[in-house]
């Protein structure tokens, strides 16, 4: 070997299996005697339940059991999903029951569970469950939900406010009093979902001989599933094993623990059969959490030179009917707003509204695209009003790299003061503009206009807290065969953990990544874990692999020194063998691994502990802050409203890169999601919060012809707060996309003075604005 693996642009180890149909996703499991489940869900956004009759469903051929609240063990009937992240700002932390028999608060809320010999028969029977509803008015729009006369999301509440808090620093009143110019505007950013192509799925099997419950779930967080199963069902922790097998995309919603993940194990144990539930796409639209709906009423204050003096305002966040993750998303929004700029004073009051929709929890970007949209729109407005270039006003306000680490004055969601650990924001902006050929743009625009074509350029910057704690651990073990195995807790839903974690370890043993296995997302393989969300695996698990592999390397050298009768400092590890430098003497890692297994009756070599392995749980002191600049060039047809993204450029700084190939893919995919948020994805609800666009024919995901290629330039500002210098890279592409795209559309349509204050924008909205401006 010899080629350095860390940082190399290498193809993924995961791919051959997935390319040949040998992946194993949750729905691919076929266990002997397995039954299939289907849910009866509320067809109404809000209703009182007067009665449920399951007699006809129970009598349907193939049906094994039908569960309503009354059929659950008594201790579970009123139990709600454990509240994951409490916060004193939350006044009404409503949580979902396993099944509902009194009041349903969103269309899709589960009421009954049918278990049958096939999904077909289970669905037949589900249609036979008769439910007597009194339909209640629903709270739909989150801003109107906070009005005095709004329908209540939960019938027994007196208002729909779930939480309220203010964040900020500095003297905002003073900033506005002394401003050369202020601008106030309302923004709206619409709801959108993760929409992984694989829906959620759960298989559970109880093995009576071993008294062991095994759950396979299409989750990003197998350890959170386990913890919640244990907490809710009261089972012993060592009798439950949760495995996230291959997961077909996550994007946030699969981070969350859902009631189905309690019910399926429960009924599998009770029925003595493995039970499978696979969410279908309609259920996915109704019952898998979404994000994003927010209104921002914001005001910016700048001096005559365009320097920021202050930003203040109010934000309303749509929480849906329940708050499983409390105020994580809106809190991230509030703390993301200042971004890469020197903002002397800031104040934001946030009100969280309960509405009769599926719960809001983080989706790729997690509250940040909204905040960046608000801030970047404000920057554009200030620039336009002052007659400064939109690029120039940003340049004047970016935090210079000499000021790193930069303390912002805010407290982040991890409870720590927000301190940007590293980054070169001015360079990032310069580089993005360079690859976008910003210098040549105005000439291009002029030429195009002469041909009656309307092109425009937009820019947006962002800073993103990534790599959140508490920890994600790793065990590195050299097996008696000599093969290296890494175990870690977070699941993989496409990020390529096998490849990148192997790259972190490989150089320690002088081996190629193909000599390393990575087993992830299995609570049976490592004692503790958290999950794959918040762009945290490279930072947490990567650092743990580094620490554990370093320890294993040191141990191997120590034992080898004993075996080879050489001094440790004369040893090196080459090609998986410990060699004595300059001598023809070596011992393989396999032999060392066997040696430390020991022999009955003999002491271990060198007095070491048994096993050639080590476990570390790296816990970061705080988040590390990734940042980037998106520059988008679009062509808009002012007559049809069609937006064509001609060139998408992104400078991206996620610290040291483990595998640029993988990071490119993360950025490109994240951008596509941002493009969807900006131009296509719209979850339509009626005035009572009943979902309208609940299919892929109506809710439009970006497809290949509409998705731009993304030119990515990587800036590498190593993070000083983890041993690898890495930062998270999974979400950065999404975050600035709507802001940059709207800025570009406005620029293209500047002859009509088009102003865009919301996302997404549809072709008819564009035409409407053009007509209003002509």
């Amino acid at each position, binding site marked *: 070997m010899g080629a350095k693996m860390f940082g190399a642009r290498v*193809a*993924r180890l*995961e*791919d*051959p*299996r*997935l*390319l*040949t*149909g*040998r*992946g*194993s*996703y949750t*729905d*691919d499991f*076929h266990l002997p005697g397995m039954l299939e489940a289907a849910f009866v869900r509320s067809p109404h956004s809000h209703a009182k339940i007067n009665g449920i009759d399951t007699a006809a469903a129970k009598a349907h*051929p193939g049906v094994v059991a039908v569960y309503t609240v009354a059929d659950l063990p008594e201790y579970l009937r009123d139990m709600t999903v454990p509240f994951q992240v409490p916060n004193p700002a939350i006044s009404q932390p409503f949580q979902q029951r396993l099944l509902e028999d009194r009041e349903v608060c969103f269309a899709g809320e589960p009421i009954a569970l049918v278990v049958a010999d096939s999904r*077909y028969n289970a669905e037949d029977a589900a249609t036979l469950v008769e439910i007597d509803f009194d339909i209640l008015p629903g709270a739909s729009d989150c801003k109107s939900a906070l009005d005095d006369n709004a329908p209540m999301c939960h019938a027994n509440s007196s208002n729909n406010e779930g939480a309220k808090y203010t964040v900020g620093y500095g003297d905002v009143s003073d900033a506005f009093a002394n401003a050369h110019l202020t601008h106030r505007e309302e923004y709206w950013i619409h709801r959108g979902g*993760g*929409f*992984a*192509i*694989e*829906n959620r799925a759960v298989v559970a099997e109880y093995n009576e001989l071993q008294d062991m419950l095994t759950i396979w779930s299409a989750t990003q967080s197998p350890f959170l599933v386990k913890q919640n199963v244990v907490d809710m069902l009261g089972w012993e922790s060592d009798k439950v094993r949760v495995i996230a097998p*291959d*997961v*077909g*995309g*996550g*994007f946030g919603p699969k981070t969350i623990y859902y009631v189905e993940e309690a019910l399926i194990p429960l009924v599998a144990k009770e029925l003595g059969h493995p039970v499978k539930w696979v969410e*279908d*796409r309609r259920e996915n639209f109704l019952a898998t959490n979404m994000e994003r709906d927010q209104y921002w009423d914001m005001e910016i204050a700048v001096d005559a030179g365009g320097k920021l003096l202050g930003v203040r305002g109010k934000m309303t966040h749509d929480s849906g009917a329940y708050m499983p993750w409390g105020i994580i998303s809106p809190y991230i929004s509030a703390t993301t707003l200042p971004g890469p700029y020197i903002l002397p004073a800031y104040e934001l009051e946030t009100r969280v509204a309960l509405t009769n929709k599926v719960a809001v929890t983080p989706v790729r970007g997690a509250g940040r695209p909204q905040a960046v949209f608000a801030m970047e729109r404000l920057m554009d407005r200030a620039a336009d009003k002052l007659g400064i270039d939109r690029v120039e006003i940003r340049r004047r306000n970016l935090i210079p790299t000499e000021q790193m680490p930069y303390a912002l004055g805010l407290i982040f969601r991890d409870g720590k003061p927000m301190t940007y650990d590293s980054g070169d924001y001015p360079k990032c902006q310069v580089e993005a503009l360079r690859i976008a050929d910003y210098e040549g743009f105005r000439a291009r625009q002029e030429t195009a206009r002469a041909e009656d074509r309307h092109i425009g350029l937009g820019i947006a910057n962002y800073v993103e807290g990534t790599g959140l704690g508490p920890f994600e651990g790793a065990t590195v073990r050299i097996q008696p065969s000599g093969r290296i195995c890494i175990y870690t807790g977070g699941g993989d*839903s*496409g*990020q*390529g953990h096998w490849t990148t974690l192997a790259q972190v370890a490989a150089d320690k043993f002088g081996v190629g990544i193909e000599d390393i296995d990575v087993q992830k997302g299995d609570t049976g393989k490592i004692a503790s874990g958290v999950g794959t969300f918040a762009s945290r695996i490279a930072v947490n698990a990567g650092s743990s692999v580094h620490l554990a592999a370093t320890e294993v390397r040191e141990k191997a050298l120590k034992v080898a020194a004993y075996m080879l009768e050489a001094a440790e400092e004369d040893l090196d590890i080459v090609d998986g063998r410990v060699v004595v430098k300059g001598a023809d003497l070596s011992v393989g890692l396999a032999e060392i691994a066997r040696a430390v297994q020991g022999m009955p009756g003999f002491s271990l070599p060198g007095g070491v502990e048994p096993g050639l392995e080590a476990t570390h749980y790296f816990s970061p002191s705080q988040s590390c802050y990734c940042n980037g600049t998106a520059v988008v060039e679009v062509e808009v047809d002012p007559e049809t409203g069609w937006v064509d993204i001609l060139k998408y450029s992104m400078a991206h700084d996620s610290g040291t890169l483990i595998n640029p*190939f*993988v990071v*490119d*893919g993360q950025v*490109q*995919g*994240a*951008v*596509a*999601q941002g493009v969807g948020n900006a131009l296509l994805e719209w979850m339509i609800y009626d005035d009572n919060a009943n979902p309208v666009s609940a*299919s*892929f*024919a109506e809710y439009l*995901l970006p*497809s*290949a*012809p509409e*998705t731009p*290629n*993304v030119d990515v330039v990587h800036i590498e500002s190593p993070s000083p707060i983890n041993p690898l210098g890495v930062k998270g890279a999974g979400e950065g*592409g999404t975050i600035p996309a709507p802001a940059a795209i709207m800025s570009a559309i406005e620029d293209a349509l500047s002859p009509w003075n088009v102003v865009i204050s919301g996302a997404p924008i549809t072709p008819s909205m564009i035409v409407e604005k053009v007509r209003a401006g002509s």
Partner: protein
Amino acid sequence: MSDRRTISVTINGEAYEREVETRLTLADFIRHEVLLTGTHVGCEHGVCGACTILLNGRTARSCLMLAVQANGQEIMTVEGIAPNDTELHPLQQAFQDNHGLQCGFCTPGMLTTLIEFLGDNPDPTEREVREAISGNLCRCTGYQGIVAAALDAAKRLKGKETAGA
């Protein structure tokens, strides 16, 4: 009682005979009766394309066909693309080399679609590739790696043809 029929379907060169309910979709037949789970189901309403298979050499969404409709027909699924257990097909190799997949869930449908497309159009433009896979949704890659893989595969397949000729 339920309407059932015995059908015989050849998948990847192997004949399978099963008695099935006539309402069983072809996707469920392939996945849950024959247990070839490489074909995936993502929407069951004919939009996402994850369930795309080749029916007598032509792509079809297997969620939009009944299993009984495949009686006597030849199907190829993702499991039938590679020449053997250890080698990848040039298209599959191009996917790995161009980072054309992340979670792998849409991948089987992408591959089957591109097998047909590159047969129809061995020398495509980027735009043609994008239109060819417009009926296959991917949420991970932003399509960039997939498009690059398809263009790369076209080159490799042409090179192979020339070498073989």
